């Protein structure tokens, strides 16, 4: 298993605020689905943003395939919780926007990829619709399709399903996990929802309150296997794992820094 992404002794401060004080070390394998789980404001999002090149470490370095990450580019795609698609572009145009600045693809290739990913996330029939005319779940799928169409092999997701209702969230989680297996993507997914973490992850990193440090690492793949199904969510293994993680999160949220 080769490391796709590595954090080496990373710390981060914004002015006087220490976001990551203890040097942070983590290796993420290619095609691994890693969930950063922790209380709100703990610094997990900042760590993820640093992978995307949207923030830079104060010390230490982050490497992608062995090379230090610089500024943002299309190889690391980002899906936000809100404002995740552009309201002035149609659904199809939003997806195509992921490839807008790529010069290595021909126009036909771009159209082909656009339609492929629209179809993959089930939005093909809404191609010419504007995002304000579709549901919140569909808007998040637009963002996922855009990131996939961009060709990113690292998907950075910041509570992308946070604003959705429970049913739609479960459904999108299933889709995301399936796409990630099929297209072999490395995913770093930030959430504070324990069940979401247990369902999606190969590995869950549980964070302390800010300044962020690793409280626990849970190898979910060893417990639940690779394939995740809705039925599995009702099983005893899932329930036990969920409870275990919930206790860890409670402990980390309650702990004084």
């Amino acid at each position: 298993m080769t490391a796709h992404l590595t954090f080496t002794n990373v710390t981060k401060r914004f002015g006087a605020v220490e976001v990551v004080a203890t040097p942070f070390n983590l290796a993420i394998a290619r095609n691994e689905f890693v969930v950063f789980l922790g209380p709100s404001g703990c610094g997990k999002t900042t760590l993820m943003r640093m992978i995307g090149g949207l923030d830079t470490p104060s010390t230490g370095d982050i490497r992608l395939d062995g090379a230090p990450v610089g500024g943002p580019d299309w190889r690391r795609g980002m899906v936000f919780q809100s404002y995740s698609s552009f309201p002035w572009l149609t659904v199809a145009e939003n997806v195509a926007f992921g490839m807008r600045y790529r010069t290595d693809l021909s126009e036909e290739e771009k159209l082909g990829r656009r339609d492929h990913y629209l179809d993959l996330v089930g939005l093909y029939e809404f191609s010419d619709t504007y995002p304000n005319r579709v549901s919140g779940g569909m808007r998040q799928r637009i963002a996922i399709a855009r990131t996939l169409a961009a060709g990113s092999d690292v998907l950075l997701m910041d509570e992308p399903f946070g604003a959705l209702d429970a049913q739609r969230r479960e459904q999108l989680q299933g889709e995301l996990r399936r796409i990630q297996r099929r297209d072999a993507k490395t995913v770093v997914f930030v959430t504070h929802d324990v069940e979401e973490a247990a369902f999606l992850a190969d590995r869950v990193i549980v964070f302390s309150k800010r300044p962020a440090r690793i409280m626990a690492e849970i190898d979910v793949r060893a417990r639940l296997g690779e394939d995740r199904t809705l039925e599995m969510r009702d099983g005893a293994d899932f329930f036990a794992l969920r409870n275990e993680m919930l206790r860890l999160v409670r402990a980390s949220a309650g702990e004084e820094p």
Partner: protein
Amino acid sequence: MSEPAASSSPPARAGGESGTPSVVARAAGGFALRDLFRLRAPLPRSVSAALAVGASVLVLAVWEGVARLGLTSPLFFPAPSAILAAMGRMFADQHLAWNAWVSILRVWSAFLLAAVMAIPIGIMMSAYRAIGAALEPIIDFIRYLPVPALVPLSIIWFGVGEETKIFLLWLGTFFQLVLLVSDDMRRVPQEYIEIAYTVGAKPGQVLKDVAFRAMLPGLVDNLRITLGWCWTYLIIAEIVAADSGLGFVIWAARRYMKTPEVMAGVFLIGIIGLLTDQLLRAVHRRAFRYL
């Protein structure tokens, strides 16, 4: 992969509580009177238009009635019909249309000049904090200077020709507009900017393709509002130093106590303003259908 079909339909924007009697009544084609007085209840287009026209007609009718009954002196408060008649005379033999045209040209040239300067500067002020930090105090200072107080200075600088009028109008709008544009830019969600960066856009492309596009609806609205202010300053400029334009017409009529003519001039400005505003609103609706 598919959500229930119902979820694909847009969320009901208004009047969401289906099943309430008023909704049922409307579905049956009726519009219940009590709907008018439900908090933030939706208003059908036809009812809205009827109310808009009806209220204006009512005001004019009351005014006309009061004047006809002799409750006001025609010298001070002429009837709408007298104002209309005066406007007719002025169109026929006092070049009112030409004077209005002169005013419109002045307003638009100053407005466009202000916009062309304010849009890039305003955008830069928010795009680069350093530019904003440097310019904001200066702009805020000038923004609070009352334009009429600068008329004498303007005349010293530019004389009494067109330059003075354009300068005064520009002065009244540019500094306000810069800050409004800067605000529009600042309000563009950071997520949009970061999405653009993470698909490989360069800073210039982020500004042009995303930030500018995102702020455009707000910008057009602010331009529409600022255009209205131009008329305020225009009248000041034309009263002080002009031999043409609606301000001049109004001021000249005042000298002979021709109140209907004064009011006709004022009315015409209101009408031009109303029409321009409606036009720009229509453009906004058309251009930003996605909102």
